[in-house]
Each structure stands twice: as structure tokens, then as C-alpha cells.
């Protein structure tokens, strides 16, 4: 057919031996170098740290744990942790849960998947909750629900703005229905907070799914996300199985969600603190934000 003549060939054909020889496997010394999971660029860990764990080549935002995030966001020396000793129980006597909790504590150095407290952002006092994906995939069980609820209640009592950085695989299965109920608990606490006119800024970080995105994280007055952050309810694999179709590459990314009206703004990590301070300043004297400096 004539049409076939003009059709672009979709793939370049490379002889297989060239693929093997052209890209020798590069050895990465443990801890010294880091490979970007998006573009494959290898960079010095030190350089990556200096770049706030953002890939210098493609801008991919590596995941941060709660303490790294707090260091980047909260004015130095102003953070006071709340409920730092709160730990999970095993209410369902779920096989393996106690061991897994112990292992997660060892690996992450955290006691559960969220750190909450009070601190200042650009001088503005706030109550903040920061989730950590490295503890049990940031899953929400009784402790996460209780700490977030207490943080909201503290913000309500002290009339302070609330800021959360969420990242979560969803509700924690091992605590069963109690995990599910944390969604209602945190959302009800936010209802009181909002009713009182409190300001809530919610920042999605990669990834935020399931029970956390379907509760407090989606209820901010302002919804922000870091570039490339996956935010959604059901995971990609589950959806692909349901609809039996491949989803577009950018599905559920911050940029996709921005396009679909689900976010106010995508903010680069290096600009996040300044942007939060600016937003707080816009509310000076309102919603619990301090009256300027």
C-alpha cells in the first residue's frame, strides 16, 4: 500500500550485540553514588544531598523521610515533636505484624509512619504532620490516625495553621477495620478545625494513595504536590487489571492531577518552604496564621 510507504517506523532496530557492548554495567559503590530511578543518571550521594535529593539531570524528586523533610521545611531549632513515643499495638493479633513493626522501626529509625509537632515556617508558627514512606510504606494505622488527629486538635485549640506532608500506600491492612476508621477520625477532626476557620495546607509527596489520599490529605484549603508525585485512590496495577487497558505514563502524577483540577499547584522541592511561607503570609492574621513578623 502507498500509505505504508509514508508510515513512520516506530522502533529503530539495533543489533542485539550492540546493546550489550554499548552499555557496560557500571558498578556503584555502596552509599557513595546514587542512581536515579527515573532517568538512570548516576550521581554522587553528596551532590544529590546538596541538590535536596532532586536528580540534577531529570529533576526527579527522590523520596525524603520525615526528618529530612522537617529539616528542609521547618526553621532551624524551632521544631518540637508531639507524641514521639506513640507506638502501634497488634489489635488483630495479625500474623507477623509485631515482627514487621520491629523491623520497620530498626530500618527507618522511626516509631511509626508520621512525625507530628509544632514549629515555624519562615517565622510563621504552624502545627505540622510529616509522613514517612520508609516506615511500613507510610501506611495509616491507629498511630498515624491518632497522631494526625491530635495534631489537628492541637492546631484547633491553639488556633495555629496546619501543614501536612503526606506519603502513604494507604490504610494499614494489619490493623484491619481500625485503620479504616482513622480516615473518619482524621476527617472529623478536620471538620472541627475548618469550622473554626483554621488554615490547612496539604502537600502530597510521592506516593500518596488509598486511605490517606481519601481522607485528611485531600481536605486542605490548598493542595500542593512535588513534581512527579503519584496521588490517587486505587493503585495503577489494580486499575489496569480492572479496565484491562494500559494507562498513560503520566497517570496519577501531580502534573496529570493538576490538569484534572485536583491540585492548586505543583511546587519544586527547592521552592517549597518559600512558597509555604508566602501562602502563610497571605493569611497573616487569618486562619491561625501569625500577623507577619
Amino acid at each position, binding site marked *: 500500500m502507498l500509505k505504508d510507504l509514508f508510515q513512520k517506523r516506530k522502533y529503530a532496530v539495533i543489533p542485539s550485540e550492540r546493546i550489550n557492548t554499548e552499555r557496560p554495567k557500571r558498578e556503584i559503590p555502596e552509599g557513595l553514588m546514587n542512581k536515579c530511578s527515573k532517568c538512570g543518571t548516576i550521581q554522587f550521594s553528596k551532590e544529590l544531598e546538596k541538590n535536596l535529593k532532586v536528580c540534577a539531570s531529570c529533576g526527579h524528586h527522590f523520596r525524603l523521610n520525615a526528618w529530612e523533610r522537617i529539616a528542609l521545611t521547618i526553621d532551624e531549632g524551632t521544631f518540637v515533636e508531639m507524641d514521639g*513515643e*506513640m*507506638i*502501634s*499495638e497488634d*489489635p*488483630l493479633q*495479625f*500474623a507477623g505484624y509485631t515482627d514487621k513493626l520491629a523491623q520497620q522501626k530498626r530500618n527507618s529509625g522511626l*516509631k511509626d509512619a508520621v512525625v507530628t509537632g509544632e514549629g515555624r515556617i519562615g517565622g510563621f508558627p504552624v502545627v505540622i504532620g510529616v509522613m514517612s514512606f520508609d516506615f511500613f510504606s507510610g501506611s495509616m494505622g*491507629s*498511630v498515624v*490516625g*491518632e497522631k494526625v488527629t491530635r495534631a489537628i486538635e492541637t492546631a484547633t485549640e491553639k488556633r495555629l495553621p496546619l501543614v501536612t506532608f503526606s506519603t502513604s500506600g494507604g*490504610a*494499614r*491492612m494489619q*490493623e*484491619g*477495620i*481500625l485503620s*479504616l*476508621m*482513622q*480516615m*473518619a*477520625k482524621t*476527617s*472529623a*477532626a*478536620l*471538620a*472541627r478545625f*475548618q*469550622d473554626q476557620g483554621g488554615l490547612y495546607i496539604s502537600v502530597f509527596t510521592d506516593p500518596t494513595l*488509598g*486511605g490517606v*489520599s*481519601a*481522607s*485528611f*490529605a*485531600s*481536605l486542605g484549603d490548598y493542595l500542593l504536590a512535588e513534581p512527579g508525585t503519584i*496521588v*490517587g*485512590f*486505587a493503585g495503577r496495577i*489494580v*486499575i489496569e487489571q*480492572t*479496565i484491562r*487497558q494500559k*494507562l498513560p505514563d503520566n*497517570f*496519577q502524577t501531580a502534573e496529570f*492531577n493538576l490538569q*484534572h*483540577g*485536583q491540585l492548586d499547584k505543583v511546587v519544586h522541592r527547592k521552592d517549597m518552604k518559600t512558597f509555604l511561607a508566602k501562602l502563610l503570609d497571605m493569611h497573616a492574621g487569618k486562619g491561625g496564621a501569625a500577623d507577619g513578623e
Partner: protein
Amino acid sequence: MANDLPYEKPLAELRKKIEELKKFGAERDIDFTDEINRLEIRYQELEREIYSNLTAAQMMHLARHHSRPTTLDFIHLLFTDFIELHGDRMFADDLAIVGGLAKFNGIPVTVVGHQRGKDTKDNIQRFFGSPHPEGFRKALRLMRQANKFGRPIITLIDTKGAYPGNTAEERNVSEAIARNLQEMATFGVPILCVVIGEGGSGGALALGVGNRVLMLENAIYSVISPNGAASILWKDASKADQAAEALKITAKDLLRFGVIEEIVPEPMGGAHRDPAATAEAIKEALWRHLQELRTMTPDELVADRYEKFRRVGKIAFASAETDRDSGTESEADKISVPDAKSDAESQ
């Protein structure tokens, strides 16, 4: 009704024997009345034995039984003058959620519930009872309306969960569920919820923030479908029965955890054996709770609902021993659900 669930096999076999004996007796004109009566008694005993010892997995199959009464069945059995209302006013009318106005013993109420299909065609229209965001938004619209006009809200919960598809994500199903959770917490009217079949995850909870949450005896309520849990835990969705046990999803478990207030009994063998009798039991319980709630002011109703959900969870403190004097531990005890032991003791 046919005994079609696996654990009902012994019953089916015994029933077959009884029928054979009856037929044989009739054909040969022999009187087997005594034997048949004995077998009928044995049948009843066996029935009681089997149905009073159902496992979580067996209940899961019962809760998903194709002839189990649905929300619309119960609406017609519980209420009169039902007026169905449609649409979220923004995008569509999601048939996976039905709702409207009705009279409950003469009182106007708003009723909302998940609706599974009755057959394949119906199920396709209703997405097997799994709502899209527009379904949750329709429910919220009807509940806001109830709040405005001071009508009690009754929700019937029966879903595998929110529809897990790209269309649901594009229209922000997370926000739709979250919004329902937040706003249901604010309504100054009584909210009563009944889990009538399967209470699947966030999609169920989005209609579940009530002052009272009741559960049918064989209904289940879970953070994740046992099938989903099995594929995550053991990479094998066929181990759903095992996951059903581990996740503690039965009405008894939830009562023990303080998540529900009451278990509504079902007829022997399950709600589908006698939908009218099941509805009668639901009606009695709902009415009783509604009478209590109707004495409360709007503020009291909101506070009551807040306290109900505020309590749920089980936590401890790493330094409980050192904190004993400061009262931290007793605080932890206060917000913990009763554990199995103390619960058993108190009963």
C-alpha cells in the same frame, strides 16, 4: 431455597436423602413418617450447628450471595412512599448508589445506599455496586439536603469498594470520599448506618460516618477486600478465605472493636432465606436507635458522632513504664478499644 454454598453441602445431602425417602415411600406405599420426622429433626439440628458456627470466610460468601437482599429490596421493606432522587448535579447519575426520600414509621427520612445489580445487565449498569465519585457526590447532595430540612439520614452499606478505574481517578474519587467523611461529621441530624452485605473499604465508609452503625449478623466490613489482602500478603488472591479470617471482618469482631453498636440477627441460613424477616429486625433496631437520637440537639448529635469515631484505635507508648506517673498510660488506655480479654471478662 437451594443450599448452594460449600458449607451447606451436608444439609443438601441430608435434604436429598429425606426427599428420596419420601418419594420411595410414596411409590411403594410404605409409611416412613417416623423416619422422615427423625431426619427432619436431624436436619434442623445440623442447620443450627452449621449456621451458628460460620467462619469469617463463610460469612463473606454469605454476604456476597447473589440472592442476598440489596439496598432497594430493604428500602421497600423498611419504608413507605420512597421517592428516588437522581444525580450529583455535576456529572452523572451513578446507579451504584441509590437514594431519596421515604417515610419511616410515618417520619420523613433521607435514605442512601450502595446498590448491587440483580443480574448481569443490572450489574453492568450499576458497576457491581462500586461507586464512581459522582455516586459519592450524589449521596452527599442528598445528605446535605436532609441536614437542611432536619431529616434523619439512614444509609445502607453494601459494596466491594469504590470503583477502581481511571475514570474514577480522573474525577478525584479520593476527594469525593474524603469530603463525605468530613461533611458527614458536621450534620446536625441523626445518622444511622446499616452494613447489610459487604462493607468494602473507603467506598463503604463514605456512607458510614453515623451516630450508630449497625451490622447484619452475616455482613462483613473490612479495610481491604480479603481478595485484595490475599494478593498483597501471599501474592495469591485465591487465599481470600484465609485473609478473611486474619482481617477480623465479622460483626462480632467489629462490635468488640467498638466500631459498630449492634448486631442485627438474620434468619437461619442468611438474609436471603427471609428478606422480610431480616427487614423487620433491621427496622426494630433502627427505630429504637432513632428514638434515642431524636432526643438530642444538633450540637449533641455532632458531638456524639465525633466521640464515636474519636475513640477508635489502639495505641501504646514506647516509654509506658516511665510515663506511668505522668498519666500517659492511662490516657492510652482511655482511647484504646477494649481488648479481647477484658471484653470477655466484662461479658
